[in-house]
């Protein structure tokens, strides 16, 4: 703590005039995110998940025959696999990054540094959300680009030309767009889930744990509900799975494309008894899955906003 350095007057004035700005906060969030090793390690792992399935596909023995036999079916299959992987792993990436961006601020106590200098609570929350949304858009765009380029490269290398692309119908491209929007929606719900978890727990540990176990629990929940149905013979246990977030998100691309695109993961339970032809549970459609996702997203968003706005900062 040696002699005071006198800064030039213009700089002093610049310092005095500076007030918290939304885009300054976003810039600060990107800066903090870029300085975390975790971000880059996760990013490299995510890139690996984009590339790996295409390498596995390319080394398959019958790939040439499959492309020649039914190119459209092959490309639909590629779309389902690559986009499912992109959806799942970008979702996990975003759950972790969002929980870190918000939870770490509480855990380190740095939230009080920012708020005590005039940064608005919601201003900070929305700046963090915008940062993560921009990251989400970037990684999804990158994932789609990598999937597209590697698929083209693979087909070109195996077949020797790209004639099979001419078999792609307008319906295919329309379904591909549906899957892109669906992936974005999935990313949005993941971000809001991790946001709510981090804000409720006011810590990285809680936020990360809660965000990461949510989807495994409600996917696994369908198995429990199925078991409960078998024991009690009550349709309630099957019907309730039509309101689980994970299963609705899993089935969404399939119902939105009328079954043309496959997805992965547990789906809401709907059983038809082959002997009596009686249906049990609720057969969800595209609208239902969108409404369920929207309701969960709204709950997560309202919880995060309300608690951030109203709760005292004791960190």
């Amino acid at each position, binding site marked *: *703590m*040696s*002699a*005071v*350095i006198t*800064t*030039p007057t213009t*700089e*002093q004035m*610049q*310092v*005095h*005039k*500076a*007030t*918290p*700005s939304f885009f*300054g*906060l976003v*810039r*600060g969030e990107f*800066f*903090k995110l870029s*300085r*975390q*090793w975790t971000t880059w390690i996760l990013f490299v792992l995510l890139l690996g998940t984009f590339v790996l399935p295409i390498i596995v596909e390319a080394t398959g023995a019958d790939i040439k025959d499959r492309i020649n036999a039914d190119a459209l079916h092959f490309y639909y299959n590629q779309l389902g696999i690559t986009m499912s992987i992109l959806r799942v792993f970008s979702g996990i990436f975003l759950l972790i990054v969002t929980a870190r961006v918000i939870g770490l601020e509480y855990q*380190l*106590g*740095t*939230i*009080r*540094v*920012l*708020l*005590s*200098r*005039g*940064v*608005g609570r919601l201003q*900070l929350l929305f700046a963090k959300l915008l940062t993560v949304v921009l990251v989400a858009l970037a990684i999804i765009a990158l994932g789609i680009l990598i999937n597209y380029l590697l698929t083209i490269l693979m087909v070109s290398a195996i077949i020797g030309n790209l004639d099979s692309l001419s078999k792609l119908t307008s319906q295919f491209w329309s379904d591909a767009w549906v899957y892109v929007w669906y992936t974005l929606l999935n990313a949005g719900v993941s971000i809001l889930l991790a946001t709510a978890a981090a804000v409720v727990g006011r810590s990285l540990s809680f936020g990360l744990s809660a965000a990461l176990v949510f989807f495994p629990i409600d996917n696994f929940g369908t198995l429990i509900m199925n078991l409960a149905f078998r024991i009690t013979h009550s349709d309630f246990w099957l019907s309730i799975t039509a309101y689980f977030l994970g299963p609705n998100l899993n089935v969404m691309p399939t119902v939105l494309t009328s079954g043309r695109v496959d997805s992965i993961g547990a789906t809401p339970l709907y059983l038809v008894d082959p002997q009596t032809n009686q249906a049990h549970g609720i057969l969800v459609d595209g609208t239902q899955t969108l409404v369920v996702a929207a309701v969960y997203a709204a709950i997560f968003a309202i919880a995060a906003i309300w608690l951030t706005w109203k709760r*005292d*900062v*004791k*960190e």
Partner: protein
Amino acid sequence: MPERNAASSPGGETVVNIRNLTKQYGQRLAVNNLSLEVQRGEIMGFLGPNGAGKTTTIRMMLGLIAATSGSVEILGKDIVTHRAQILPRVGALVETPALYLYMSGRDNLKAVGDALGGVPKARIDAVLEMVGLQNRQKDRVKTYSLGMKQRLGVAMALLQDPDVLVLDEPANGLDPAGIVEMRDLMHRLSAEGKTVFISSHLLSEVQQICTRVAIINLGKLVTVSSIGELTQSHGEFSVTLDRPQEALALVQSQPWGKNARLDANGALITTAPNNRGRELNLFLVKAGFAPDTLTQATQDLEEVFLRLTNGGAGGVQ
């Protein structure tokens, strides 16, 4: 000692004005109807035992927690309704320094600077030099000692060249040289017209740094006074002389000297006939106890603090 509750000092521009501030958690009053004014350029010490409500008050001053009732004005504006305008002019260090441990000291300042609307590199260099961290600025904060983290916390508070500094235990973790540097820094900032509000447990430091102190206990303001007034022992004199025990017995037999006593150094502490030191001197000389020295008695701030806060245990006064 008579209780002083004059929450404001005469004259000067009021920079911090706390009025009837109350914070209630369930049945417990953490801060109870606290009123306090701080003038421009003052270094105000804010003292109280653990759980007295110091940090709660500071958090309400910074808009981190909502007051149950009452208000805080800084630079003439209410911090609830004008927080975005006022708080950028306030630098704060609340409790332990909160830092991004995974970043360097310099990057910490840049990250906070970005969030606060951008701070020039020259200013970051300046505050790093002010707190003596320029040689470790590129090291990760997780490798810093507590004292270095404390310095970086102070640097963060100074980043926007604030008009008001609110520092909660700024000397925590500093070595003796660091404490002296911190004291010098506070004095320099005060000389520049900045107002400093310090909460600290280091009473000797507060006594050396602060111009006034406010003492709270159980959420209530016990006293606010200048250091001089607070440590001055009203109407008492300190006398060094030979045979103090005999002198004490003599003085205690006088109607004006019943509360006379010896302090830890053996000096006779007593009131004087007609409250005049000259008459006390005359009395002692006539009785054969010619004083070596006779001065107005003062008290250590620690003694005052412990008495006013019931031994620092948060007891009722």
